[in-house]
């Protein structure tokens, strides 16, 4: 089996902004609304890609939207080797 290539530094895409809308601001409109991406109940989950370790698989980048169509639980915790 070929050794998996994985260097010390491997950038993942992190939060992935939705494609900017092509709406042209109305004439005379001074304020351009900047939509800030954040998690909110009842709203679409902000997508992201992160480097991951998966037991039995190894190192692999994981994108949240790869799991679209399933029930997903994301669990954040302060650090490995502590309780969660």
């Amino acid at each position, binding site marked *: 089996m070929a050794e998996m290539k994985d260097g010390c530094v491997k950038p*993942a895409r992190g939060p992935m902004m939705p494609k900017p809308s092509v709406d042209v601001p109305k004439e005379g409109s001074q304020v351009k609304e900047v939509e800030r991406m954040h998690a909110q109940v009842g709203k679409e*989950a902000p997508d*992201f890609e992160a480097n991951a*370790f998966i037991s039995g698989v190894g*190192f692999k980048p994981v994108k949240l939207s790869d799991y679209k169509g399933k*029930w997903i*639980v994301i*669990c954040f915790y*302060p650090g490995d080797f502590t*309780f969660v």
Partner: protein
Amino acid sequence: MSTDSRFVHKIWQEEELSKMVDGGVPFPMLSDAGGMIGEVYGVYDAAAGVDIRGRFIIDPDFVIRAMEVLTPEVGRNPKELIRQVKAFQHVKETGEVTPSGWEPGDVTLKPGPALVGKVWEIWKP
């Protein structure tokens, strides 16, 4: 997901978690180095440089249904997480709503004008 690297995740899995859970934790262990994902989800503590305890349930349509965020001193209750997932699944399948503490098999409610003032007749916790 934590701000630890994927390498630290591997060692934690192999050295500790696999001794607590047969075969190790079966879920992907994600690295949020830099906290950018935690920032978007409202759980990144920039002063400490870590993601605090945040838990999110996302449905198959990619909509966030629930979130729970705790400061780090108190651990979570997986039973309550599973209860909430089951309740959201039931709601999605049936269109009914589930009163507090609902467990599968318990009475559900059908929201509408007929229910107003009648919850006490149907739901007896």
